[in-house]
């Protein structure tokens, strides 16, 4: 299957997503423009407010100083009268500016078809506009890699000084007997919207996924670890803390269950050609058909040949399934838990052989030697038929913690 086949539903979805992504940029640009407009309006209001407030302050000071006077001196009255219109005019000006903001907001949102009531409310509360300091604080989040037990020492060689955002180091955030492995990240890079764009950048993805994995691996060197999914980001440290509190039992139980165990991946590939040769050699059905074919006239033989090819294909599939299942069963025997991942297609693995098993095994350290020995045996026994066994690991136990939609807790 090639990438430019328009019929591929995945490509259709990509196109759809790309359109959506560029729509997202349009939204972003409009949001930026709106922010800039607001900032400008804010500065205008500020300019108007400064002299008005100064005037007010001066007047109050003046009134305090001249307080004893008004009782018997007339000038107080005209002074009062003179300030009144002034104040009113400032207020009027502010009202006019507010109306202008509202008008701008309305025009902007009308022209683009959005603008929530929340945004409409902003002009009525100019004070709610973020100050630069608030803005800075909100531009960072807290990336959580994993949760580990508190009992281990600092990892050998220490925690990585560069996290997934290399500007910030990795650190622990503890709650009772568990701790989150965290580092600060810029939301310019890890915000929800920009993330979708970044995920399309394979170089970015590769660097970040490897860093996530490296951090988990460093930390898990001598302790149990519950790995979190890529790009789990909280806006504040207290939200991370809340997550630890909320899921404390789940994390503590999972850490106890995973202690002293590691995940290993085994992929089995099948070379269709050598298996086909073997099927021809050993299959009774094929032999019967071949014998029958030899006695038939050529026209009939042609159809029989087609029939035989079908049978061989079926046999190959059956044998592949059977061997994959038997390999998985034998490996599972040496594992605490096992899981079968979806098979990776040839377009993903970039190999000529078809993948017939993509297994994950949670193996206790004490069983590792036996597990490896079984893997070697399988490689030898199934090798003749064209099966290749490939081992990866050890992995943090990604495949042995709950998936979305599954009830990990008693929720």
């Amino acid at each position, binding site marked *: 299957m090639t990438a430019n086949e328009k019929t591929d539903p995945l490509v259709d979805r990509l196109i759809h997503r790309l359109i959506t992504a560029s729509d997202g940029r349009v939204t972003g640009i409009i949001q930026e423009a709106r922010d800039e407009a607001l900032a400008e309006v804010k500065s205008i209001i500020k300019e108007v407010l400064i002299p008005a407030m100064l005037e007010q302050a001066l007047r109050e000071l003046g009134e305090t100083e001249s307080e004893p006077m008004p009782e018997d001196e007339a000038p107080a009255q005209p002074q009062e009268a003179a300030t009144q219109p002034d104040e009113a005019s400032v207020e009027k000006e502010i009202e006019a500016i507010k109306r202008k903001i509202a008008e701008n907001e309305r025009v902007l949102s009308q022209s683009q078809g959005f603008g929530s009531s929340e945004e409409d409310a902003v002009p009525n509360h100019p004070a709610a506009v973020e100050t630069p300091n608030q803005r800075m604080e909100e531009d960072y989040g807290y990336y959580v890699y994993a949760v580990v037990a508190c009992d281990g020492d600092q990892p050998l060689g220490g925690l990585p000084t560069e996290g997934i955002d290399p500007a910030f180091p990795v650190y622990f955030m503890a709650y009772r007997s568990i701790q989150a492995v965290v580092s600060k990240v810029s939301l310019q890079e890890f915000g929800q919207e920009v993330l979708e764009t970044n*995920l399309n950048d394979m170089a970015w993805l590769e660097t970040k996924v490897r860093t996530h994995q490296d951090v988990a691996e460093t930390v898990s060197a001598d302790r149990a670890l519950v790995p979190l999914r890529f790009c*789990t980001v909280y806006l504040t440290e207290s939200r991370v803390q809340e997550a630890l509190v909320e899921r404390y039992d789940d994390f503590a139980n999972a850490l106890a269950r995973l202690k002293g165990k590691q995940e290993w991946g085994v992929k089995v590939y099948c070379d269709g050609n050598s298996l086909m040769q073997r099927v021809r050699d050993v299959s009774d059905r094929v032999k019967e058909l071949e014998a029958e074919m030899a006695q038939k006239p050529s026209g009939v033989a042609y159809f029989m040949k087609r029939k035989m090819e079908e049978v061989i294909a079926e046999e190959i599939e059956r044998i592949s399934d059977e061997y994959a299942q038997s390999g998985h069963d034998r490996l599972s025997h040496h594992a605490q838990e096992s899981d079968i991942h979806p098979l990776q297609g040839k*377009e993903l693995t970039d190999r000529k052989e078809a993948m017939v098993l993509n297994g994950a095994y949670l193996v206790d350290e004490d069983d590792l030697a036996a597990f490896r020995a079984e893997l070697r045996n399988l490689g030898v026994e199934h090798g003749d038929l064209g099966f290749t066994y490939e081992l990866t690991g050890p992995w943090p136990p990604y495949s042995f913690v709950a998936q979305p939609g599954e009830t990990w807790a008693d929720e």
Partner: protein
Amino acid sequence: MSDRVAREKEVTLLDLVDRVLNKGVFLWGEVTLSVADVDLVYLGLKVMLTSVETAEQMRDKHLLQADSDEKAA
């Protein structure tokens, strides 16, 4: 633990994506990866590998062409 260091094989991006993006505990952070995001990453990998393959094929074709041109000359 020397066993930990001794990797069987260089881990491919695909293996990493299979686990780091597709598995692991899912928590509702303010930023999270959706199932659609993960699908898109697989699609991206597929497109990337296909284009690498196509580029290699084109290069090979080009080399063959250059080769036969040379022989013809």
